[in-house]
């Protein structure tokens, strides 16, 4: 154990968020009253403090805790994506839970604990830490998914738990095989080992390990064919948790996916990129095609989240630094637009009635202009129409793919993205061009200051990234350079 005090610097943001989570838990236990919505702001304060500690990590890579955790630009960039996700989720949830009469502190504590897990995934440079972080995140998310204790919510939780456990098994088995092949699970050591021993690229054990790791990560990012849980879980879980899962879990899983595959397995890029090529295509296509057939907005967004995982996988297939930085920008953009969209979905519902069917949206664009505008912005962004963040993200990823000569994948990706416009615009068309029924299902919005703030923040983020993305893109490019 060669521990240095300086290592704590790498862990400082995690410690802060974890401490906040425990504080929230204690506050829930000791503070009187049934309504603990204000604890969300305590959580946000914690995240802000962690965010203040993060910029110091942005720079050349430093490894700590015997090479288990990295402090580098890559991790720091992901931390910031996760902070954005965390803050927006807490804001959205605060409003939502009050309306659903479920204002308990545990919820916020669980969100923060999941956030710690996600952050560890982004910083981990050791496969065991990746696994532990993934479990930390997942267990909190399982509990969150079943938080409402309604039949659907619990069903979602249980399905996610069972299948998640199943997939974790594959991941762990994969790690074991990699250990068997390389004798180490430290990511940079694995990379060096593959480099030193080219024969390893045809070792069945190493390749099977890579395959099983693909299954484990593929499950978490909802890649086809490991996606089957996604629609049921996303639809059943509380909407705020769905937003959290779709953005936070995806970002965290992709951060680990990136570091493990692009760094540790860079010696076998030829082998695994072919597999991911197929997965990316399947994921985009199936996600988009099935989303077209949905009549429920929440479920549609679940399938759309599968499709977006497909676009992101394109970046992974390419595997160049350019592609990695494109994925990071994409994930940030996705965090803004997806949480924003879910915030709008929440606002359309009311106590005991989620109103997520597309028919409920008829005519609300004119009855609630601000909400309509926000939803339209998020839908345009998801569809990848400029000047929104979604366009920039897709553009960067496809540009990176073209640079490396992945023409077919790019063409198929762009075709997919064109098909996706159909179901995103259908929401807008329903909102603006379908007359609202005489007795509309939505007779008012549940808008609190926090949800409104979250929507505005997300909208500003989407437009900022869409209109002046230069700074963020540059930051992501620098961040990747520090990944090593």
């Amino acid at each position, binding site marked *: 154990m060669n521990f240095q005090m300086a290592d704590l610097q790498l862990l400082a943001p995690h410690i802060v968020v974890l401490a906040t989570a425990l504080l929230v838990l204690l506050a829930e236990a000791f503070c009187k009253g049934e309504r603990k919505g204000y604890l969300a702001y305590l959580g946000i304060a914690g995240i802000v403090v962690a965010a203040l500690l993060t910029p110091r990590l942005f720079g050349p890579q430093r490894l700590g805790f015997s090479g288990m955790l990295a402090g580098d630009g890559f991790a720091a960039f992901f931390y910031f994506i996760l902070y954005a996700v965390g803050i927006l989720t807490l804001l959205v949830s605060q409003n939502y839970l009050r309306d659903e009469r479920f204002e308990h502190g545990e919820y916020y504590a669980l969100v923060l604990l999941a956030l710690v897990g996600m952050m560890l995934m982004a910083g981990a440079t050791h496969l065991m830490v990746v696994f532990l972080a993934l479990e930390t995140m997942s267990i909190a998310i399982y509990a969150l998914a079943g938080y409402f204790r309604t039949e659907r919510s619990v069903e979602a939780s*249980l*399905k996610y738990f*069972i*299948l998640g456990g*199943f*997939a974790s098994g*594959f991941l762990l088995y994969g790690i074991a095989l990699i250990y068997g092949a390389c004798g180490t699970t430290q990511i940079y050591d694995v990379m060096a080992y593959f480099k030193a021993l080219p024969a390893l690229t*045809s*070792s*069945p054990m190493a*390749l*099977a390990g*890579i*395959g*099983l790791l*693909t*299954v484990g990560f*593929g*499950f978490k990012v909802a890649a086809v*064919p*490991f996606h*089957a*849980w996604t*629609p*049921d879980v996303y639809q059943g879980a509380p909407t705020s948790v769905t937003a959290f899962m779709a953005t936070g879990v995806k970002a965290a899983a992709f951060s680990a996916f990136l570091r493990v595959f692009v760094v540790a397995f860079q010696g076998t890029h030829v*082998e695994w990129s072919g*597999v991911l090529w197929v997965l990316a295509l399947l994921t985009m296509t*199936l996600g988009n*095609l*099935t*989303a*077209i*057939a*949905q009549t429920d907005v929440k479920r549609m967004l679940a399938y759309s989240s599968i499709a977006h995982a497909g676009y992101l996988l394109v970046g992974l297939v390419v595997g160049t630094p350019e592609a990695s930085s494109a994925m990071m920008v994409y994930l940030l953009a996705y965090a803004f637009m997806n949480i924003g969209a879910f915030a709008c979905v929440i606002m359309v519902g009311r106590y005991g009635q989620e109103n997520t069917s597309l028919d409920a949206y008829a005519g609300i664009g004119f009855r609630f202009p601000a909400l309509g505008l926000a939803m339209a912005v998020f839908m345009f962004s998801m569809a990848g129409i400029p000047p929104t963040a979604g366009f920039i993200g897709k553009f960067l990823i496809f*540009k990176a793919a073209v640079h490396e000569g992945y023409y077919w994948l790019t063409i198929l990706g762009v075709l997919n993205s064109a*098909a996706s416009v*159909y179901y995103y615009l259908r929401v807008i068309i329903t909102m603006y061009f379908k007359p609202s029924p005489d007795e509309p299902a939505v007779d008012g919005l549940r808008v609190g200051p926090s949800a409104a703030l979250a929507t505005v923040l997300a909208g500003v983020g989407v437009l900022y990234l869409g209109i*002046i*993305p*230069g*700074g963020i*893109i*540059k930051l992501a490019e620098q961040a990747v350079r520090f990944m090593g």
Partner: protein
Amino acid sequence: MLDLIWLIPFFPMVGAIVNGLFGRRLPKGVVHTVACGSIFLSFLVSAGAFFALKALPPAERVFEQVLFEWIAFGSTTINLGYLLDPLSCVMILVVTGVGFLIHVYSVGYMSHDPGYARYFTYLNLFCFAMLTLVLGNNFLVMFVGWEGVGLCSYLLIGFWFEDAAKAAAGMKAFIVNRIGDFGFLIGMFLIFWVFGTLDFRTVMAQAPGALVVGGGIVTAITLFLFVGATGKSAQIPLYVWLPDAMAGPNPVSALIHAATMVTAGVYMIGRCNVLFSMAPVSMTVVATIGALTALFAGTIAITQNDIKKVLAYSTVSQLGYMFTAMGVGAYVAGIFHLMTHAFFKACLFLGSGSVIHGMHEEQDMRKMGGLRKHMPHTYWTFLIATIAIAGIPPLAGFFSKDEILWKAWSGGYKFQWFLGFAAAGITAFYMFRLVFMTFFGKERFDPEEVHVHESPRSMTVPLWVLAGLSVVGGWVGIPAALGGANNFHHWLAPVLDPAAVTETTHAAAPDLDGLLGVRTAYASEGAGHAEAPEGHGAAVGAEGGAEHHDPTEYVLMFLSVAYALLGILVAYFAYLLKPDLPGKVAAKAKGLYELLYNKYFVDEIYQAVFVEGTLALATFFWAFWDVVVIDGIVNGTGYVVRSLGGGLRLLQTGKVQAYAMTVLLGAVVLVAYYAVVAAF
């Protein structure tokens, strides 16, 4: 001080945001204080920037401020930055100065309008866009401003959108502008293609090396840019929107159609003077179109009876002069006329607004007359501005217009000179026709019914300021031939001095006697100035070239003044002494009169050819191509995709066992694949 130039567009933007978001709830006093205050602050900063720039030696009078990196892709970055040099400095002073006066005027003019806050929001937004346009340090920022003023003009022209005709006028302006913008865009793409950047200074610095003088590329670039300019600055063939645009409130006409937006095209050509100077063909096109427009619009103005329509065509005609100047390579003269025109035309528009206001929304001059007694302030200011536009010395219009005509003549553009010269007298004629019909003679309305009144102080004070500027505004550019120092030329020379590149342009034009003299004068002016940055006297001394001046210059000067006086006399004779004469003439030359009165039927021709033609084409595309072919394909694809999606949906059984099975199967396939890879 120079570091603060970002504030110049910033203040109006803040004003627009404040009034746009909260204006409806704020009292009117706050609304117009915010609006006028913001533009006034911009003016102060502009003035400060002017003095700061003036303090520098001429060669260093360029200041670039990059606010942030806007777009970065690959090795290309486009910054959002501002460029302050003598040219943009003149522009910001005109925009903020005249803009401020118009804001103040609007306080009185719009005081009873229910859309008070909306009006000032648009006005501030417009100023923000215009300042972005002139301050931008690259084509893209300029284009943002370019589109911004287009949008704002649409909003302002259609400000009273309850009236369908006015809303349609707004749309017409927007659509015609879009056609021009398309040209501008293509020009911009070409520039990016050739230079790999859109930065003004880089493009201009690299142009001589990267492009062949008179080559196809530079000609294409400049012609496309010029198409953009014809849209924005209302030149043939895209001028049609401007007369209709008089539907907007009067101060809007003054702001957009006199002082700011329509000058954007002229400014843009000035900004790209290096490129234009390299493309003699484009130069000839610009000069010819400009001169034709000047005469063409002038003739239409003769027959119009709507006071604003006359001014509108007059604006088109005056813009023609500016383009003539640009086309003959006399960039400084063009910008000079731009500035003086901003003063007197703003004064005229505001004066006409005052008349309309006083006459209770009457715009037909045939129902006016004798207003001299009722509205003394309006009358005097209007008269001063009219004399200025007619080109009578020593008012502003004389110097600037005369310089253009002289440069056209001496540059060998005799044909363009002739057109411009012909238009000069016509200008004097129709402007004085306007004055005589409006302010002199008998009242052709019932004073008992229409209580004519002078406008409030907030409207007359800006009028007087502008009238004053119309008098003295030209004195900064008195040509050397009249013993002036032509400071304006010295000021702009670092940006617009064509000496380095005119060789070719002039080589393309037939050589002339006057040419040599002018060239020498140019060189000595430049040299004199470089030696003595502040000493105007020294510059005059160094020039020492009064004897170089071609006597022709004086002859032409005399001719044009005499011709203008003749125009005034004819107007006096026809509209005051023999008021029934014009009717007789119109009856005699009925065909010609009808032609002019109906504006050469250009609107009708456009309607028949472009609008109806487009509609017919659109109907064909819609009814056959779209509905049958495209929709067939799209719906077919959609049907297939949807049924596929519906089929895929069935895979989602909701059973955990099935889901786990898919995961397992996926894993097996993956591992099997890798096993195969490993085996081979």
